[in-house]
């Protein structure tokens, strides 16, 4: 049983998606528990696998017993073991959160398909994370993408259809680039297994085919992670999707796309390739810095809470790409920490936004004056996660930023380190706008009706508060997280 955990991670949720469909036909109320149980099981399995990996080293599972490079293998090492645990934890939190949110935002007859698609999305993302085969990665990417397009549109508002369609177009272009990139790699090496590719590629580093493949993959995944200026699909998609979907795609899907990019840049290709042969890190570092600043400035300019957080994501993706651009041990530790940290804090912030929509029916900042009096717990969670976003110690956001800056300093990139530090302050600009409005905007306003505290349902509050507290505790006990992050960063740089 334990040996087969990797494949069960994918097989169980696919079966469960079908089960939800069947059970939903019988009685709609079955959908949610099945979904919850499945994801909790997956999360448990992910933790078991991560502990196993940290103890025993990389796990390789040959699907159907076919040995690679011909067969497809699932590979879980310290890098994706860590990512897997993170995304399944956040998926679990999102499912708990989703139930009441979905009841409010999705038509009753569409809820079955919502849970089916939700399950398929998680399946696709888990598949992307643990596969060791680059074409298989593409397949899972498409599964998750198609589920996402549909889920975004499931808000069934005209604007969400547009957002979904825009993402569909850009996502398909991205998929096209990725597929062509994979094709080129196959032409150059004759294999699709990632480990095999890593072995065979250095011989062809000089080939134009390989350069093209790398560029295509880079562009394709840059669209998927919404790396500035290829982010155009993101603000609409995040804003117009149902709240629960926003939480899931802004945390889990965004992080898996980043994972895939890191995997390809560092494992399929190597640091030697991106630094020496096809020197692209300096350029990425530059764009990442621009992304940090531009995303934050755009976020400050928004008048809608969800859209503001969406632009903030563009800025935060910049931090993670910054790590890729610096490409040394400390910076990558910071980047990986930020994958976790940003998922936790942005998940929390979007959950707050969802709760505010649930309760107030709007996320327009101008309508939220004094909302902290009505929803004290949600706003406190926002303040805590927001402090993490700004990088106030001792939150997790500070820790990842610290590692990034330290890495940049060590690499001699003083100017970029300085820009990163200053750019991080811009986050204070947009976080504080909400804090001011929520906490301090009401006292002297004309109509001072005493608003009784009316929070959302408990099942939405609990995951939100848990994530907010995690922002603090992961920061305070950062050394525990570093136990998992450090070997992962080493692995990316080609070490043990």
């Amino acid at each position, binding site marked *: 049983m334990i040996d087969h955990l990797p494949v069960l991670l994918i097989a169980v949720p696919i079966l469960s998606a079908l089960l939800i469909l069947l059970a939903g036909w019988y009685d709609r109320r079955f959908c949610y528990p099945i979904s919850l149980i499945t994801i909790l099981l997956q999360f448990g399995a992910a933790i078991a696998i991560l502990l196993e990996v940290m103890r025993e080293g990389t796990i390789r599972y040959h699907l159907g017993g076919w040995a690679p490079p011909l067969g497809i293998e699932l590979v879980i090492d310290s890098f994706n073991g860590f990512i897997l645990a993170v995304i399944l934890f956040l998926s679990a939190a999102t499912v708990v959160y989703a139930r009441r949110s979905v009841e409010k935002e999705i038509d009753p007859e569409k809820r079955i398909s919502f849970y089916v698609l939700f399950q398929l999305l998680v399946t696709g993302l888990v598949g992307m994370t643990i596969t060791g085969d680059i074409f298989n990665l593409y397949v899972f990417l498409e599964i998750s993408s198609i589920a996402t397009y549909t889920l975004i549109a499931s808000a069934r508002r005209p604007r969400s259809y547009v957002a979904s369609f825009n993402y569909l177009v850009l996502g398909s272009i991205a998929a096209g680039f990725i597929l062509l990139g994979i094709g080129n790699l196959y032409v150059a090496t004759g294999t699709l297994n990632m480990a095999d590719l890593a072995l065979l590629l250095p011989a062809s580093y000089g080939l134009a085919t390989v350069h093209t493949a790398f560029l295509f993959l880079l562009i394709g995944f840059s669209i998927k992670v919404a790396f500035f200026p290829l982010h155009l699909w993101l603000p609409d998609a995040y804003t117009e999707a149902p709240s629960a979907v926003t939480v899931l795609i802004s945390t889990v899907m965004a992080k898996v796309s980043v994972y895939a990019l890191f995997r390809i840049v560092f494992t399929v290709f190597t640091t030697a390739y991106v630094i020496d042969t096809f020197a692209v890190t300096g350029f990425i570092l530059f764009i990442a810095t621009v992304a940090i600043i531009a995303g934050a400035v755009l976020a400050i300019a928004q008048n809608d809470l969800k859209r503001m957080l969406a632009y903030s994501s563009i800025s935060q993706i910049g931090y993670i790409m910054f790590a890729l651009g610096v490409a040394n041990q400390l910076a990558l530790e910071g980047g990986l920490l930020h994958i976790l940290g940003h998922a936790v804090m942005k998940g929390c912030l979007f959950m707050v936004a969802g709760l505010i929509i649930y309760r107030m029916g709007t996320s327009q900042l101008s309508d939220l004056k004094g909302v902290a009096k009505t929803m004290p717990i949600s706003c406190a969670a926002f303040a805590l996660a927001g402090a993490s976003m700004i990088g*106030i110690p*001792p939150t997790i956001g500070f820790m990842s930023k*610290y*590692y990034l800056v*330290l890495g940049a300093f060590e690499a001699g990139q003083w100017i970029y380190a300085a820009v990163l530090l200053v750019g991080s302050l811009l986050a204070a600009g947009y976080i504080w706008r909400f804090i001011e409005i929520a906490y301090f905007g009401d006292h002297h306003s004309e109509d001072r009706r005493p608003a009784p505290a009316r929070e959302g349902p408990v099942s939405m509050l609990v995951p939100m508060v848990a994530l907010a507290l995690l922002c603090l505790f992961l920061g305070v006990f950062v050394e525990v997280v570093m136990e998992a992050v450090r070997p992962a960063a080493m692995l990316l740089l080609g070490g043990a």
Partner: protein
Amino acid sequence: MDAGLLPAVTIAIPLLAAVLIPIVGKHENIREGVTITAAVTMLGSVLAMLPPILSGSRITIPLLPMVPGGDLALRVDAFGMVFALTAAVLWLLNSFYAIGYMRSLQEHAQTRFFFCFAVAIAAAVGIAFSENLLTLFVFYEILTIITYPLVVHVETPAAMKAGRKYLAYLLIGGIFLLAAVILTYILTGTTVFVPGGFLAGSGSALILQVLFLLFMVGFVKAAWMPLHGWLPAAMVAPTPVSAFLHAVAVVTAGVFGIVRVAGWVYGMDLMASLGLGIFLAVIASFTIVTASLFALTEDNLKRRLAYSTVSQLSYILLGVSMLSIAGMTAAMAHIPIHAFLKITLFFVAGAVIVSAGKECISEMKGIGRKMPVTALMFSAAALGICGLPPLAGIISKIYLALGAVEGGMPVLLLVIIASTVLNAAYFLPIIHTMLLQRPDDERSLDSVTEPPLVMLIPIVLTVAVSVWIFFSPSMPFMDLIDIAIAEITGSVVP
């Protein structure tokens, strides 16, 4: 209890209070009871550490591993004790005063107010007890964030604007401080404070000079000019908050940081060889004189006091800049001395607001007839800052003068004299207005009385402490400072 745990306990007490305060927030008396209990216990816990510190030992307690460059760790030494003791005593007095003030004015959101106060004092004590630069930075940033709701407490548009200014100055300062900390780590591989400094020989003179500039901007809480704008702006806050900013924690944290860096990161010899003493002396002298001139022009009492603080804080920088034993002593001694005197002045300014509703000096004519004790205490503290015995202000002035001569910079004597004259020039008219002038309209003061006892007693007590420091300077402050000076100069503890 194991004495080794006391530093952590001291910080945990107000944090625990911060957890309890929102829970019991609905019941005002219980909520205030929590604050007072925490303040008393924290003072007790600080006092319990005093004997071992006075005997020359240090209490170190590593809390948590954090990041490369520094773990979260506490170490209580003599200099940290000076700050912590000042903060602990003043928090207790300020809590009583704040309760009286907030209730008299029926301020809103008092639970938030006392919650933030409790976290802020924990951060201040954390700064005092930091074992390394990174721990100090963590608490320094927490202090910035948690004082923001206090500053914007009244929530008027003017207050929100001031709050943005406050946050902008201090957060940008924080970034500079972080850069300085990281640079220190890159240069030396450590950020743990070492008496006498650890930077010597780790980088070129230019880098170390730039690093010092980063530190200076980082400690913008010291409100040196021209980076002082946030402090007068923050005067929109309720008076107990002003007292907290000016005396208990915030500006004190800034100057504390600069002294810490000068004595425990650079060391006086390195500072001298880099020419940083002269740099600091120029900044300090400029600030002392200019801020005093600004103070002359202010009619709003709290704003005049704010500029007075800006000026007085630079006494501490001036003391450091002399890079001599007497100068350092003056710098360290001025931290508690200024805190006790300045908090009296703010307490009085708040008492006048509560009793008479007046903020401008020109409206306070003859107010001493109705509030004799309050006005007398104000006069005493103001004269104390000018340097009149028998109040503590004269002590730091004497050491400053000694340091100027000892450090071979007699020109700084002129600054000290000019400053004393200016102090008198902006304080004496206030005393004159309060005590001697007749009100324009006799009946306008009819309803004015002394403030409630819960506010009046802290006012009297802070003056009493200042007098006590004058008559018995050695115990505990000067003894602590002697130990700290001995540490950083490498001489034997006297």
